[in-house]
């Protein structure tokens, strides 16, 4: 029984336990924000593992916790507050959700239990407007005997040295959608790493005659579409919460900065223009935060959450950038320096907005939907 939206808002005992237990981890992360070491910092991953977060979206049979989405989103928010750069959301929330929606078989069970146990990090990449970087996959498949042969490339996916598996969405020779699993060491699959604006590790993947075993095709046709759609909804909700966590820190740090005594012998907070801008920033934050809650509620409970999720993406992307710009401006020169934390948080917000495809994309999709439904 999901209950009303208000029930959704009230933190459950379970959420409280998970987030309380993470308090030390989050506080520690905030102190040693270092984007340079991101991604290869496997100690961070083991920190997350120790908190018991890895199996949040994995069923109990596979060693997971099987928590409702709202709890996974509470952790996503902490990832935003603590600027976690490891692909926790991508693997433990998005990939795990996707794998829970495809037919159970040995490979899927192995992946799910591996995610929960901390020895698999799985990245999902597919053309889907709900998934981050969802226009970047251009892979074609042809049949070679019982196997598939893949060629093509992926412009961007979350990917680090620690990534073990890639789940690719692609079109079968017959035109229907397939989901295939590739281990990252598969012959013909090359990863070309680079950095996202928030320091998280990305890679372009190039596939040259990559062979896929029959049992690696984990879903086909409508099943694949449904699993991808579900994963996209969950990804949208989780990223909105991650963004909210980062914005929360931005607002708090900006307030602290404004309160410090400084130029002209006064704290910046004595200037009415900056006071009003701080007020607007907080109002914007409340709007984003509200939409993040709506997003997780919609993805958890509604049959057709897409429209609510698009609205949430629009508000989060648009207001998030506005808050970030105001925060940097109010930080003055300090805001331009990578040595203060504020820029790192703003970059996280910018990453998520771009990974969503930007605010205009969400507007176009909403407008098109509006016409269709009107």
């Amino acid at each position, binding site marked *: 029984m999901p*209950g*009303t*939206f*208000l029930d959704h*808002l009230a933190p459950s005992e379970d959420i409280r336990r998970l987030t309380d237990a993470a308090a030390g981890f989050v506080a520690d992360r905030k102190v040693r924000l270092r984007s340079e070491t991101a991604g290869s910092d496997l100690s961070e991953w083991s920190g997350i593992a120790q908190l018991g977060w890895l199996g949040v979206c994995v069923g109990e049979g596979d060693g997971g916790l099987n928590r409702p989405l709202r709890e996974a989103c509470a952790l996503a928010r902490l990832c935003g507050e603590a600027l976690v750069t490891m692909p926790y959301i991508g693997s433990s929330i998005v990939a795990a959700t996707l794998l829970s929606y495809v037919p159970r078989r040995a490979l899927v069970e192995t992946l799910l239990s591996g995610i929960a146990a901390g020895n698999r990090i799985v990245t999902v990449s597919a053309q889907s407007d709900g998934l981050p970087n969802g226009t970047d996959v251009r892979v074609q498949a042809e049949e070679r005997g019982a196997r598939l042969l893949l060629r093509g490339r992926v412009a961007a996916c979350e990917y680090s040295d620690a990534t073990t598996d890639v789940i690719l969405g692609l079109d079968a020779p017959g035109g229907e959608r397939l989901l295939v699993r590739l281990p990252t060491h598969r012959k013909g699959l090359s990863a070309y790493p680079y950095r996202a604006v928030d320091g998280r590790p990305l890679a372009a993947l190039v596939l040259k005659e990559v062979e896929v075993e029959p049992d690696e095709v984990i879903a086909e046709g409508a099943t694949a579409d449904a699993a991808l759609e579900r994963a996209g909804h969950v990804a949208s909700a989780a990223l909105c919460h991650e963004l909210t966590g980062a914005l929360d820190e931005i607002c708090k740090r900006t*307030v602290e900065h*404004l*309160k410090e005594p400084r130029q002209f012998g006064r704290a910046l*907070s004595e200037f*009415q223009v900056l*006071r*009003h801008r*701080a*007020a*607007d920033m*907080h*109002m914007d934050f*409340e*709007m*984003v*935060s*509200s*939409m993040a*809650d*709506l997003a997780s*509620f*919609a993805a958890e*409970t*509604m049959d057709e959450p897409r*429209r*609510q999720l*698009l*609205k949430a993406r*629009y*508000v989060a992307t648009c207001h998030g950038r506005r808050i970030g710009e105001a925060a940097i401006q109010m930080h003055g020169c300090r805001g331009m320096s990578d040595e203060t934390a504020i820029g790192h948080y703003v970059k996280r917000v910018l990453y998520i907005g771009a990974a969503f495809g930007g605010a205009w994309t*969400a*507007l*176009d999709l*909403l*407008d098109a939907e*509006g*016409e269709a439904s*009107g």
Partner: protein
Amino acid sequence: MVPENVVSFQPAGTHLDQSAPDHIDLLLDDGLRGFRLEVRRFLRSAVPEDLRERVDRGLPSSKSEIVALQRALNERGWGAPSWPEEHGGTGWTPMQQFLFNYELGANAAPPLPPFGTGMVGPVIYTFGSREQKDFYLPRIRSGEDWWCQGFSESGAGSDLASLSTRAEDAGDHFLVNGEKTWTTHALCADRIFCLVRTSKEERKQDGFTCLVFDMDLPGIEVRPILGIDGSHSLNSIHFKDVEVPRSGLVGDMGKGWGYARFLLQNEGIGLTCTGRSRRQLARLKTYADRAMMQGASGRPSPSFLTEVARVDAELTALEVCEIRMRSHGPNPAAASMLKVRGSEMQQHLTALLVDSVGHGGVAFGPVPHESDHAETAGVMQDYLHSRRLSMFGTTNEIHRDIIARTVLG
């Protein structure tokens, strides 16, 4: 034949007549959905169709229409839902309060004046005498008494501490002299809640007293002020040796400043007006689809439709924000936030309504039915009328000051 692609005026918000669940319903459980439907059904029968249409078009409602609705609500037990139950309130949860307000707007109920139920009532049941409570509160709930609020004075702006209307204590009565201005509804009000100076004190805020009295006392003259929207809802009030009975003293002498602030704190509540905004958005879509706007191709303007999608998302955020904030209980910063964003949303929607009728936006006042613009007349008045939303009572600038104070100290 003359091409007749004019369609007859379609009451907007028609979709709200249906009971297909909307995005708000999706946030509720069966109990709340039922409650919402109950409120809606009640309002659909209590507010006549032609009144709804006039409200939609931003045309004024008459006092008798508003009083009729207030009376009907009161008979249903909903005359003052937010009051304590002992004074005739409903004991509703914050979510029910939200839904009730939302449905008032979403069903184009005429705007219920906030002065009695929202502002004067709470002051009286909190600080008033037994006699004042027994006499005034039922008359507020039933709509029998209309109130106005005598705070503003010319030159004082939002600075109440510089008011100069004064009352001399003459034993069994007070002798009131001075002027109030920008007073909404003064011309049709039965009673006034008036902030007056009763002594000079060191601190500017001290020495104020609150009086309640009848608007038909000798020596009171009300002069209407023509508004930029063509309405006459604003007035100035001139007091010349008005004898106010001592029974009109609210609470203690000299404590009026505190009561006035208490009253204004209640002002923001209910002003988010998300239900009305949602209905306006639906109307906007209807107008835009009718291609009154001259797009490059004669089709509805693409840039305008994008803007409609944007505002739809922003309004959803405001609705959800209101639900979240109201569920957390009273909080001055939250009330200010909802007031600021709610009023700006309403203002923006009236601006878009003007835009949505294209060249029709030039018209003002009555338009002969021979003009196509007759059908959409009223949008410009509504736009101009809505300018008050960021200004009256407490300005949005002061609300932003309040928010900043809670955030920054």
